[in-house]
């Protein structure tokens, strides 16, 4: 965080005198202020010859701190914001939309959990195609295992409920242009890309949707989990970054988590205990081994009880 010195041009009150006073209390940055007892600091200015100016300086630091956290909103402001911005995005599967009461929502981090070839990627592609074809907005697809396939998207477009729309090659190209895919093979690159995305995102305009898909997030995170606390810290901060992108920038974020074998031959999510309370919504996908019939059940949802399930056909 910013050293006090760098604040001087913007806040002349934080002059060398003030910096010296802070340094005598082992404070060099705003971050140090956050850990320091400011009341005690205020008291100690009293002994100083220039106490008035120092107090003023401290109150300026207070206002700087206010800018360091999200603003307080009252419930009514929150509600109006949510009603204006949090729209449902259809997944392209009517039954899933019904189960989730309107599909995926802007502002949410949604996780799909399921064993390999249970239809997670297919679902991601379908959502991407659906957003693009219905002209809802744009999709950023972070692909960690070369699972993104433009051909599949092309096929999905053919199956789309309104094929008339995508007859011409030109329209098809425009639709494909809406989906940007990027290969990511390690978590640090993902952090970079997400920070880039965060800095380039513009404030929400109209009803345009921005969708962010990471398929699969678990394959980036599991390799670093072995390193103990550090790995967990990276995982949790990735979760918070995704939630911040979703909520503050009104993205709809969809990530997938694969499953691994656990004791007794059971399967468990690759990202387990410390991750499971990160997403807003957690959905379990499974597939009958011979057919294309999949089922989706709710593991966590802001208000729908866990356990509700629905069957759908992948095609």
């Amino acid at each position, binding site marked *: 965080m910013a050293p006090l010195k760098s604040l001087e041009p913007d806040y002349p009150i934080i002059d060398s005198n003030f910096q010296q006073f802070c340094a005598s209390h082992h404070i060099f940055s705003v971050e140090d202020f956050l850990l320091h007892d400011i009341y005690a600091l205020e008291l100690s200015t009293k002994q100083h010859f220039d106490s008035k100016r120092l107090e003023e300086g401290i109150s300026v630091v207070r206002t700087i701190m*206010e800018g360091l956290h999200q*603003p307080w909103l009252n419930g009514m402001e929150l509600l109006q914001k949510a009603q204006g911005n949090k729209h449902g995005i259809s997944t392209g599967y009517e039954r899933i939309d019904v189960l989730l009461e309107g599909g995926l929502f802007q502002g949410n981090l949604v996780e799909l959990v399921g064993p390999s070839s249970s239809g997670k990627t297919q679902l991601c592609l379908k959502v991407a195609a659906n957003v693009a074809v219905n002209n809802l907005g744009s999709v950023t697809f972070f692909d960690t295992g070369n699972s993104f396939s433009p051909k599949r998207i092309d096929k999905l477009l053919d199956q789309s409920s309104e094929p008339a729309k995508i007859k011409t090659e030109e329209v098809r190209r425009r639709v494909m242009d809406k989906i940007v895919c990027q290969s990511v093979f390690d978590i640090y690159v993902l952090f970079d890309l997400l920070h880039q995305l965060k800095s380039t995102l513009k404030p929400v305009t109209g009803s345009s949707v921005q969708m962010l898909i990471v398929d699969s997030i678990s394959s980036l995170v599991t390799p670093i989990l072995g390193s103990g606390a550090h790995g967990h810290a990276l995982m949790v901060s990735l979760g918070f970054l995704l939630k911040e992108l979703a909520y503050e920038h009104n993205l709809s974020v969809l990530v997938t988590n694969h499953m691994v074998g656990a004791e007794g031959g059971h399967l468990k999510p690759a990202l387990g205990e410390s991750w499971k309370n990160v997403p807003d919504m957690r959905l379990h996908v499974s597939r009958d081994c011979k057919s294309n019939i999949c089922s989706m059940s709710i593991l966590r949802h802001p208000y729908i009880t866990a356990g509700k399930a629905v069957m759908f056909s992948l095609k």
Partner: protein
Amino acid sequence: MESSSGVRKWIEADESAKELLSRVLIQLFLPPPLHNFPFRLGNVVEIVGPSPSAKTHILMQAAIRCILPKEWKGVHHGGLDHAVMFIDLDCRFDILHFSRLLEHQITIAEGLKFSEEIDRDSLGGYVKNLTSMCLRRFFYVRCYESLQFLATLKTMHTKIQEQKENHGVGIHMLIIDSIGAFYWTDRALSSLTLGDTNRKGLSLQAVSDTVVEELRKLLQLHPMVILTTKTVNLQGRCLKHEIKSVPRNMSSRDATFFRATRSKPENNPYREYMPSVWQNFVTHRVLIRPSDDENQRPPIFSSEWLLPLLNRTDRFTFGDKYYIHTIILYFGYIIFQFTYI
């Protein structure tokens, strides 16, 4: 002359004994499973449980009780008529859900059915107005990392002051959901202590110390109940059933000892991870567990007071979402049974 009038003003009574008592003896009665005690301003209540175990839902119900008025336009709502501040560290709070719960809580008020003033036509308006009035005294902030949390706490005093002046309603409840959210990220923190070895480094301990210190100061300036949640991983679920009875032939003193020593594992059915400075700050702690039968619909939870230690378990459920046919179950928190150990 001026100074003597100042002194006179200072010693002048500005509050009757009755006012003082009603200020000091404020008790908050919260909905189940927090119904076992009336809470006093200054209490720090921690709701502990695995994820998911309806902890945030319990917070929402407590917040609704707090922001609802006791009575509005002649209809009794049984609320506490105060503002609530909600610091969301888990970043999963859903305002649409919260407002729906609130609206529902308003519509189930008994008096609404019999009120002469409010007929069916004006009912919608009544609910809408009251909902927005209540929501206006609910204050919410999200923090995505510890530094934001600290900045929020450090500047909260001015925020509360401002709110008191503007709205005239006191704040009696501060909610933090959930306190351990940044545990992993804080543990990995380490800032370079360049130049000065006395400089406080950013660490889990330093963050917890500061959080507790700030909350303490805040409680002194603005007495309120702090309600927090903490997500834990339960260890071995059946510990509870192992100690069922005290051998008959024991004297009562031995029996107490027996219970105290034997029930130790039960006191800590989860691995504690927050630094002791936080643990010591908590005055009340309740453990929520989902029932062993995971397929039970609607899910049943049990609650157990660990601090103060009550040797009893209450069971409660929420029913199925907000569908009309099960709505009574959901909001009524029907207590299924009380099992005394």
